[in-house]
């Protein structure tokens, strides 16, 4: 079973597009559900930290592998 409810492919997109698309995707989620974002913009690491801080969403994980960045974000209950 996947440990996320919705996946957003933000590869090839640069700030502010991954954030903008994540914001829209989270609106589709229910409380407590998790959005996974896959991005390639190195700036997205700082951006998603700031995004979660400012929106109250929880950054469960932020990992990097082979030039791709993965973020798991939980919508608060």
């Amino acid at each position, binding site marked *: 079973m996947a440990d996320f409810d919705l996946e957003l492919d933000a590869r090839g997109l*640069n700030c502010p597009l991954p*954030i903008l698309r994540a914001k829209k995707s989270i609106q589709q989620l229910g409380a407590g559900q998790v959005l996974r974002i896959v991005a390639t913009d190195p700036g997205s690491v700082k951006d998603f930290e700031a995004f979660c801080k400012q929106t109250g969403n929880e950054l469960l994980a932020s990992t990097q592998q082979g030039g791709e960045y993965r973020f798991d974000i939980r919508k608060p209950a």
Partner: protein
Amino acid sequence: MTRRLKASERKATILAVAKVLFADKGYHGVSVDEIARRLGVSPAILYRHFPSKEALYEAVLNDIACRRESYVEAVVASEGGFEDVLRRITRIFIDSVAADPDYLRMEMQSALEGSEATRQFFENRWRPFTDLIEYHLAGHARNGGAVVDGRVASLLFQGMIREALYAKCILKSPRYRDMPVAELADRLIDLFLRAIGPAG
């Protein structure tokens, strides 16, 4: 007695002075000796912090890159629509560049010097705008809307905002004296949105 500067303070001072000189004269117009003279130190001290002029120039660019504007707050505060996000991130960019016109001068100089690495660096600074516009217009066309060439539209946008910054911050054009740069940008965005028509 002059206080000896800490290494980090010395480095920051070198970067600040080098930025002004590179902005005024371009990479090729400035020598390490001149930067050292302006700082009141020997070239040897400068080389202790930066092994070459090229390394110093890169450090100046990196310093600018580290202060990359954050558009996160603008996106969070927006209602998520194209026009709203475009206006908000443009305002952040304009405020940041207007506060440091040396950055604009460096961009102008680098355009003339033709170094690929610096051209790429400055092009990346426009990416948030060009990508946002191209992505939005492509989505609009995919959904059956009017087809507008995103590459051309983003060049139109970049040209008008950059020209507004030049007119206000570098040339200090009397023609636009009565108009703050943010207002000028806002009115240009109005025209831009009309130009791309219903796709906006």
